[in-house]
């Protein structure tokens, strides 16, 4: 593997240690080289140093997490950014150190600390009553979280019992759409049901997505309220040993009905049953049959499905199942919602409840690099999430190669020289700018109210 030397100034061509063009070392196609090259150990730290030196968007992160408190408006709280907890995971050759309660008073302090420490992972925590680094100076009751984004963590391994194409850390274009579904369903619910507007979806780097809801109303939610929202989305319940994890005792709640009609039904019927070959394999369709609380229906279908396979067997058998459940003669109580129950069991979003419930749960920062895959945790556009391909997300190695390749282009804007520039631009235009606008408006109106109140109180 060619070593990549940091460019000290744009325009300088990096020297190769072993001579020759680095492009010739591997005979694999260029795309595969990028994917295969996941740096580890000291090499990872070296690469990260360049990444943090030239690409990590400090100013954007600062602007985001300040929520308008950048000191320019008289109504600003200049202590706000400094009260946010960050945590670092730092790898040395043998050990991994985890540092909590890091804080910075401004963007440049954050930038210099990250560049110096070169963490393999950065997590964002809550905003506390006081600077977390100084918490010991206060009584334990004086140190507690006051604001925190409403967050969601969705990991594809939580769907392992229903996906057959991959397991564990693997993902592919057949099962990734479960994440797409999760984004669509949850994003719509957050906006339509809860009225939130400033929502950031981020690729977790390997096999999942994170969601950051940043409205001030969301940041001020109590633990109990977060818990309620988590439960609102908790449709798939029960551990390893319960059989039926989704039960609808009546018509679907409007939010679930919307998810079913707009997203789940279509996806399950047109894609999922075929890509996962749900009705082609006995253990797979038996699992579905187990969700039907009527022995006679189950045995009739099981009988029909023994033996030969037809063309489009999955859609055909699904239709047979639906017909059996919907036909007039078998409308016993438990069957009425069985079809929806099956569809929801396989496709409805499964969030990590504990992540959403807590106020001090730390979550990986956007634009970190996932150490296992080398991929950057880039934002995902919820309006175009079907187009998102986790296997083509820029990797650390790829970005560095792009930097080298475009080194001669005469601009200091390194981001523009790499494919990361697109992601950062999206972050700015679709998320950051509208958010800051709202924050400034809120600051302004809160300030005006305060002035008015103090004026009133002077009128005895």
């Amino acid at each position: 593997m060619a070593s990549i030397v940091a460019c000290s100034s744009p325009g300088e061509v990096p020297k190769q240690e072993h001579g020759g063009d680095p492009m010739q070392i591997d005979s694999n196609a260029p795309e595969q080289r990028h994917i295969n090259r996941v740096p580890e150990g000291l090499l990872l730290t070296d690469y990260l140093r360049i990444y943090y030196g030239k690409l990590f968007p400090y100013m954007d992160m600062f602007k985001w997490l300040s929520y308008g408190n950048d000191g320019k408006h008289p109504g600003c709280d200049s202590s706000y950014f400094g009260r946010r907890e960050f945590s670092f995971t730092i790898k040395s050759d043998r050990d991994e150190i985890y540092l909590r309660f890091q804080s910075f008073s401004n963007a440049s302090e954050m930038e210099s600390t990250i560049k110096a420490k070169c963490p393999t992972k950065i997590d964002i925590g809550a905003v506390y009553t006081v600077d977390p680094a100084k918490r010991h100076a206060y009584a334990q009751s004086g140190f507690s979280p006051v604001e925190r984004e409403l967050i969601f963590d969705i990991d594809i391994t939580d769907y392992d019992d229903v996906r057959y194409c991959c397991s564990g850390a693997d993902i592919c274009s057949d099962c990734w759409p479960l994440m797409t579904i999760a984004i669509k369903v949850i994003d719509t619910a957050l906006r339509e049901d809860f009225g939130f507007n400033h929502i950031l979806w981020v690729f977790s780097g390997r096999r999942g997505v994170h969601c950051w809801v940043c409205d001030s109303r969301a940041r001020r939610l109590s633990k109990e309220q977060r818990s309620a929202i988590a439960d609102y989305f908790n449709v798939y319940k029960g551990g390893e040993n319960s059989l039926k994890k989704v039960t609808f005792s009546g018509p679907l709640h409007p939010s679930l009905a919307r998810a079913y009609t707009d997203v789940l039904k279509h996806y399950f019927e047109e894609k999922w049953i075929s890509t996962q070959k749900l009705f082609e394999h006995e253990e797979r369709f038996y699992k579905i049959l187990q969700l039907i609380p009527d022995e006679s229906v189950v045995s009739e279908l099981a009988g029909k499905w023994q033996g030969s396979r037809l063309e489009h067997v999955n859609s055909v058998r699904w239709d047979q199942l639906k017909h059996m459940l919907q036909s007039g003669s078998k409308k016993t109580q438990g069957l009425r919602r069985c079809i929806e129950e099956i569809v929801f069991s396989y496709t409805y979003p499964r969030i990590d409840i504990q992540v959403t419930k807590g106020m001090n749960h730390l979550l990986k920062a956007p634009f970190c690099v996932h150490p296992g895959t080398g991929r950057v945790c880039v934002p995902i556009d919820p309006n175009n999430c079907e187009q998102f391909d986790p296997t083509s997300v820029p990797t650390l190695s790829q970005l560095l190669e792009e930097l080298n390749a475009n080194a001669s282009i005469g601009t200091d804007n390194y981001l523009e020289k790499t494919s990361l520039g697109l992601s950062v631009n999206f972050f700015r235009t679709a998320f950051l700018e509208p958010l800051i606008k709202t924050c400034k408006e809120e600051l302004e109106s809160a300030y005006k109210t305060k002035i008015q109140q103090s004026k009133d109180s002077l009128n005895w």
Partner: protein
Amino acid sequence: MEIVRSQRRNGSDGSAGAASLPLYKSAPSLEVRLEEFERCAIDRLRVLKAISDGLSRGKKPEEMDNLVGELWRANMKHQDVDETLRKDIISHFALRLVYCREEEMRRWFLSMETALFRYRFRLQDAEAQKSIMNELQLQYNVLSHAEYETLKDKLIQAARSVNSTSNPETVFYKVPFEDVPDLVASRRVFLLKGFAFVPRNQVVSLVCTIFRSNISKALALTNRKWRATIHDQEKDRLAPIVEALGNSYLGPDYSQPRECAEISLKDINQLASSSFPLCMRHLFGKLKEDHHLKHGGRMQLGLFLKGVGLKLEDALAFWRAEFSQKVGAERFDKEYAYSIRHNYGKEGKRTDYTPYSCQKIIMSTPSTGDHHGCPFRHFSEENLRAALNKMGVGGRAMDDIMDKVRNRHYQLACTLTFEATHAASCETGINHPNQYFVESRKIFQSKNQQNQQNQQSQPAA
């Protein structure tokens, strides 16, 4: 409240409007004798304890309504309405003093008082409910007819999704969703752009949330005052009464295992099959099988073992022996040992975590790959029968247990399991896994003693 010989007698604390259901906003200036103080507190405590018991036995809401009605009549009601109100107020504030002192106690008191308030509120007529809401300054807007018409379908759908036979309510309040977390959590209300549309019959939830939050704040204040001044002032008078009342109830939390209950690693397999409740047996079995447990399982089993008397060093050895077979000893030390020490209060903010009670375990939400939670609640019938079979339960007992499960009386099912496997009755009912263990050991130890006695009394051959 002045518990001295003060003169002013003022029966109203500003809640006379809702004559029969006070909100306990502030302690009234009343003259109360010590004996009355203690007696009122004990009577109210009896009510709260019975509510707690009923809830943990999984009684349905209608049963609870009846229960609370009876309890109130038996313990608190007086022929004279004013007398009832007086006792109500005095007993509430007296118990505040008792239960403000520790976090666990505050939580329990808060839950029980809110439950009591909820049942009493539901029994009030619409007029009284309205005036209570006014007092709490619930300025929620009622949906106009036009608004209702636009949303009608969704509102009905939301109501039917919970109870498909409900009569459609037509009066709705538009409430910010933050104010009704329990309705949001159970998807009982329609939400639109941050507002929940609460039917009049659900307004109870709203009122209770506010009631709870008010009492919670008051408890924190009372605690501070108690520590700062009252405790010293009342060292010889109220403090002993308050302390006695506090100890008289809450079941042991098993955070400090008794000396004689320490267990060692070599006994653990045997103890698991003889004395662990099903939830812990299952986790233990899965751990032995997979050499791994997810976080929820590690917490539930780990804290249980702590409560049973497993010392930290032994716990670390135990978990390491299992996990290292899957992830290696080094990874265990790096990734898992910390959280075990955390459970024993040796890391972080050094909280000594208490083992989970049945109520907590039943309420937990296991998901894919999890094995924690209450098996009586989450196992399919087939899996549950198989698991109980392995414990040696069969025949009639099995049927009784499955019947309880179907009716969602999970703790009663566990109690019956205990009785079937120990051939003994369990009067008090199971409400904590460590309690199951302790009771089980008691039975085995007395059997051992019996055996020893029998052997001793037999003439040498």
